């Protein structure tokens, strides 16, 4: 942009400052108290909240993974299988479903999920896992899983 005089340049500087503050106030629009409208307070609050948002991107993933694990563990323990045994058994059968999918199956497709627990149980028993063999409950007798190659 061409400034024909020093006066124009000064005006421009003021406008820049306006838009710079405007950017911050847009982010602080929903805050409570003076942090909404006083720039000195608003910029601190905005920087603080942006820092939280940066950290929260990681925490959100961790929280969701934890919630899925809780749900899968709850679903599998209803059928007598513990969470680590379920994941290990499915992995050995080449069933690579992630935690989100398993949790959704546990809620919305309980019969499919029970079948998965039974596959894992049978596989772990077949591989001679001591903990699984000592588990309480009647193991499924109508499930066939591929045997390990070793």
């Amino acid at each position, binding site marked *: 942009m061409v400034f024909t005089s020093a006066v124009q340049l000064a005006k421009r500087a003021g406008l820049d400052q306006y838009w710079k503050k405007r950017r911050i106030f847009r982010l602080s629009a929903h805050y409570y108290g003076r942090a909404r409208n006083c720039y000195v307070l608003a910029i601190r609050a905005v920087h603080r909240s942006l820092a939280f948002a940066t950290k929260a991107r990681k925490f959100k993933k961790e929280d969701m993974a934890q*919630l899925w694990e809780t*749900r899968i563990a*709850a679903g599998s323990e209803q059928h007598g299988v513990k969470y680590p045994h379920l994941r290990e058994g499915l992995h050995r059968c080449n069933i690579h479903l992630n935690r989100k999918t398993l*949790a959704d199956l546990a809620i919305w497709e309980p019969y499919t999920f029970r079948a998965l627990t039974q596959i894992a149980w049978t596989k772990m028993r077949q591989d001679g896992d001591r903990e699984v063999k000592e588990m309480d409950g009647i193991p499924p007798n109508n499930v066939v899983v591929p045997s390990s190659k070793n």
Partner: protein
Amino acid sequence: MSALQRVTQWQTFARTWHLFDARWQNPFECSSLIAKHLQGRHKPIYHPLNDCGDMVVAINTRHIALASDEWIKRVYFHHTGYPGGATWTLAWELHDKDPTMILKKAVYSAIKNNLQRRTTMQRLFLYPDDKIPDDILANITNQIRSPRPVPTPLPDPASEEFQSFPRIAPFPEDYVLK
């Protein structure tokens, strides 16, 4: 929505009443199990903001078992808020005063401290022996399996079972039994 779907939804979201027999159980081991049922973490629909916790009725809390010498070593601290208002109560003293308190405090500690904690605790009913009020007994539909097997006590020395048990050698004639 079909009749089956409707019933499935009722059953999914209904509050179940569980019975827990605390006889010969370590309260600090089974507290996490009870807390899990109170918070609803045993259901696949669990969410921290979802009010899906169940009711738990714990009976026989007078007959809990503490490991090792914890009855005389475990100390419960209380402070009235006034100067000199601190008290330290041993586990056996607290158990004498209120036989449900040790299990109650154990479950309370097993629940994470948040706004739901007190509400969650209100779903726990504790009874020192196996006498439950009828209106509560009528609701119970499930039993939580106790983690530890209950040991069988030694039979009465005068009983036939004790007398007929095979012995390696008889006691000497002049041996005085206590």
